[in-house]
């Protein structure tokens, strides 16, 4: 009786483990020295596991349809999008690095900021591979500070620019006549309209950038953040920031007792009319949301007079990627003007170009100019004129933690 059970179990186990075949191992040692044709031919017919944040249906759809079908057509590569937050895949890689697991399941990553820094410092990324990609060489302005540095951390060819973002505020023009255009004005506005404003809690990406945005105006600009962190100096430096945020707190949504856990919730509050302003890192995202009927038609975006934080997000390949060649080919395609322009369309995604528009051919430049950005969006020139860079990545976890202690947990509350 029991022999039989055991046989069944064993059979099942074999059957099941058969299902989990990993991607075919490719010869990858010398990918960094081989030429592009070899890389492409190695990549053909493989599957690329693309790990990326999965909370935006439009971005998912863009990857799953546009990218996926192009890769299939051009190189017979299947792109397998895996939805996972950056913190989580970094953690996963960290575990794999610790036990030195070869043949990891991640081939391509969407990454930037402190996650890139962590990944680099723990030697979790493979490269430098950037200069292997023809489109990178052709269309990317390699010396530009927002491409050579990721939140102040040198990129060194371990990642390639995927797109650019700039922090903007969204407001309902039907309800807010004169939107606040600086930290000072915001404080006054929030005091005049209690309960109508809030920001996502750190370490949410957007919440975190809002805190830095305020920090630039009330405490210290990006210029005053050297690569080396001096905690004591920093504590003093940030004192006005916590003062400002705590002054704001009682007038926030829910009197600041709690904060929306992420951008999506903030957007939902805005869509439901609970608050009158939201914010995001994609300047044309609002237009897309209006178009989809999720946001009021009277929504508008704006930047602060002294500028808002802009940054670049990148693509990277983990140290143990099973299919590095495939990942490189996909990354190269994502660097192409076609992909970048498609991504730029607010209806598809609305992400700013990661490559340099001036390096593009004329026809592509015209295409970019022809894309309607939607009524809610600011013209590219306005955005460019109001862009300020990020601070070094190392400060970000520090600030986020300090925010939790100083503001969220509410010392003296």
């Amino acid at each position, binding site marked *: *009786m*029991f022999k039989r*059970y055991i046989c*069944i*179990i064993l059979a*099942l*186990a074999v059957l*099941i*483990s058969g*299902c*989990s075949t990993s991607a075919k191992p490719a010869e990858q040692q010398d990918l960094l020295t081989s030429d592009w044709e070899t890389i492409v031919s190695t990549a053909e017919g493989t599957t690329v*596991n693309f*790990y990326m944040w*999965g*909370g*935006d*249906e439009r971005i*998912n*759809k863009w990857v*799953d*349809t546009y990218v*996926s079908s192009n890769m299939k057509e051009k190189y017979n590569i299947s792109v397998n*999008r*895996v*939805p*996972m937050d950056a913190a*989580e*895949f970094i953690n*996963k890689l960290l*575990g*794999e690095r*610790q*036990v030195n*697991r070869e043949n*990891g*399941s*991640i081939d391509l990553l969407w990454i930037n900021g402190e996650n890139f820094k962590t990944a680099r410092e723990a030697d979790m990324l493979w490269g430098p591979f950037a200069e292997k990609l023809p489109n990178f060489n052709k269309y990317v302005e390699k010396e530009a500070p927002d491409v050579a540095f990721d939140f102040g951390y040198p990129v060194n060819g371990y990642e390639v620019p995927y797109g650019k973002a700039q922090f903007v505020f969204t407001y309902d023009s039907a309800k807010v006549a004169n939107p606040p255009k600086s930290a000072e004005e915001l404080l006054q506005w929030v005091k005049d309209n209690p309960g109508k404003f809030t920001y996502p809690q750190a370490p949410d990406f957007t919440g975190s950038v809002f805190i830095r945005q305020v920090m630039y105006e009330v405490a210290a600009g990006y210029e005053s953040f050297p690569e080396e962190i001096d905690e004591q100096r920093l504590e003093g430096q940030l004192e006005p920031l916590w003062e400002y945020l705590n002054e704001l707190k009682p007038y926030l949504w829910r009197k600041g007792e709690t904060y929306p856990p*992420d*951008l*999506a*919730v903030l*957007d*939902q509050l805005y*869509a*439901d*009319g*609970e608050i009158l302003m939201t914010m995001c890192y994609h300047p044309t995202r609002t237009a897309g949301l209006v178009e*989809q*009927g*999720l946001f*009021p038609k009277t929504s508008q975006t704006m930047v602060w007079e002294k500028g808002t934080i802009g940054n670049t997000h990148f693509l990277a390949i983990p140290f143990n990627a099973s299919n590095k060649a495939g990942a490189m080919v996909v990354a190269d395609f994502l660097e192409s003007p076609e992909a970048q322009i498609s991504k730029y369309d607010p209806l598809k995604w609305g992400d700013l170009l990661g490559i340099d528009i001036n390096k593009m051919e004329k026809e592509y430049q015209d295409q970019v100019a022809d894309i309607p950005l939607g009524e809610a969006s600011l013209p590219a020139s306005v955005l460019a004129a109001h862009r300020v860079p990020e601070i070094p990545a190392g400060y970000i976890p520090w600030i986020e933690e300090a925010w939790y202690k100083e503001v969220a947990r509410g010392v003296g509350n």
Partner: protein
Amino acid sequence: MRLNKIFSLTIFYLLITPFIVLILWSFTQTWPAGELLPSEFGFRGWRYILEPHSKVWHSLLVSLSLSGAVTLISLIISIPAGKAIAHYDFVGKSLVETLILAPIIVPPIAVGMGIHLSFIKYGLADSFLGVLLIHLTVTLPYSVRIFISVFKAAGTKWDEQGRTLKANWWARFRYITWYLIKPGLVTGSALVFNVSFSQYFLTFLIGGGKVITLPLILFPFINSGDRVIASSLSLIFILSSLFFMIIAEKCIEDNQRQSEFYYL
């Protein structure tokens, strides 16, 4: 009596209205703030599910085969285990019983985080097998406990009668035990399947994004507040687990309809 009626009606509405709102949201195009009904209906959520790129069908397939395998293995190995505990006396029995109850009380978060790195090291992470094994630790307590109750209730008399009638173990299983455990199989498969089917955390942690089940597709949408897609996915979710339960009930005919009982 009247109060009871009001009470039961209230309960009924509390159970039903959330479903109605869920269905409404899944067919919404625009639902402006403050309005009681959507101003515009649409199929955005359902279109998303039907689009091949969304991988909803693929994840449903993964979910079904994962939970199906978990259910099958869980039930098969729980039958002898339940019988052993119900009908035999042996050294360390109470320890075994405690061990079998423990995973219901000890949170999966502790087990999952504790074993994660070892799973990575031995190649069980990111694999179907790894997820299957970790699901089993969660479902086994339920199925074993169900069969303990079933065998306890049936007693040893049927087995003994079978022995005196010269039935060998297979005949006893086929013609006696099978009928005794049928209700347990229905309840057990419904319970185990759904515990596995709705498992998010362990699949996410151990599957590492390689084993994408329906909850993994659903979670980001709930998290990101895309109510329309989250609603239609949720409905697919509920429908498929209900469907499985009906199939299980039909496959394992249970004429006495004893399966409505939880044997926990």
